């Protein structure tokens, strides 16, 4: 592409054909989702410190093992992984690494997210289907 069409290609709707813009937009959206989640997480988990013997906390934990909560968790896994991996891509670019290859790096990130998602989804759906976690570390910490 010569200089002229390259310039005009980045105007208006054409801007959103660029991988980098989508990477930026999803980074921002996932970031805002995670800010909201962190606040909710601190407030919900801290119920454990309020109730004597932790009955409220155990009720909350029971809800967190409900299929709906597990599916929402998978959405969270995608948001966290995308934000983390695209963050690494940005840090690399800060050091001047991979600027020419940023699109390949972006799609590699997407591939890693898909692989991790499959692993997390396998555990979540096994639990939903059988009520058992295939990889549980029960008793390891006690």
């Amino acid at each position, binding site marked *: 592409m010569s200089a002229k069409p390259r310039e005009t290609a980045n105007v208006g709707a054409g801007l959103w054909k660029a991988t980098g813009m989508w990477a930026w937009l999803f980074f921002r959206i996932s970031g*805002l989702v995670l800010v909201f989640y962190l606040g909710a997480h601190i407030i919900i988990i*801290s119920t454990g410190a309020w109730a004597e013997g932790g009955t409220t906390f155990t009720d909350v934990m029971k809800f967190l*093992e409900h299929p709906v909560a597990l599916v929402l968790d998978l959405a969270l896994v995608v948001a966290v992984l995308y934000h983390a991996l695209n963050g690494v891509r940005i840090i690399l670019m800060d050091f001047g690494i991979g600027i020419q290859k940023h699109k390949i790096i972006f799609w590699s990130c997407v591939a890693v997210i898909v692989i991790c998602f499959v692993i997390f989804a396998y555990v979540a759906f096994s639990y939903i289907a059988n009520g058992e976690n295939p990889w*549980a570390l*029960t008793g390891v910490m006690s």
Partner: protein
Amino acid sequence: MWSWLFQRITAVLLIVCLAIHLIYTHIAGIGDLTYDTVGQRVAHGTFTALDIILLAAGIYHALNGLRMVLMDYWFTSRKRALALTIVLWVVGVAFLVYGIWGLWPYIGYKVG
């Protein structure tokens, strides 16, 4: 400049600590989540330290990220940006203190 640098430092901290945190809670923990099992996990000093690092780095990274987003929209002037920064610091420190207050009693927690 400093907020840019700390955003990178907390990012790296979060990647390491959050990986451990997520594997423990989302893979190893499902099906075994009660007050006692979670209490035993955070009773270990290592996990308390990990959680406090996560809390501090997470709150800083989250609120500084939110600050950068908001400064693209309404908080564009120096005055508004400063007001926003002060409010976010107050919120952040409050959440940090509250989070540590919530974690502290579990150090050495035993069932029964």
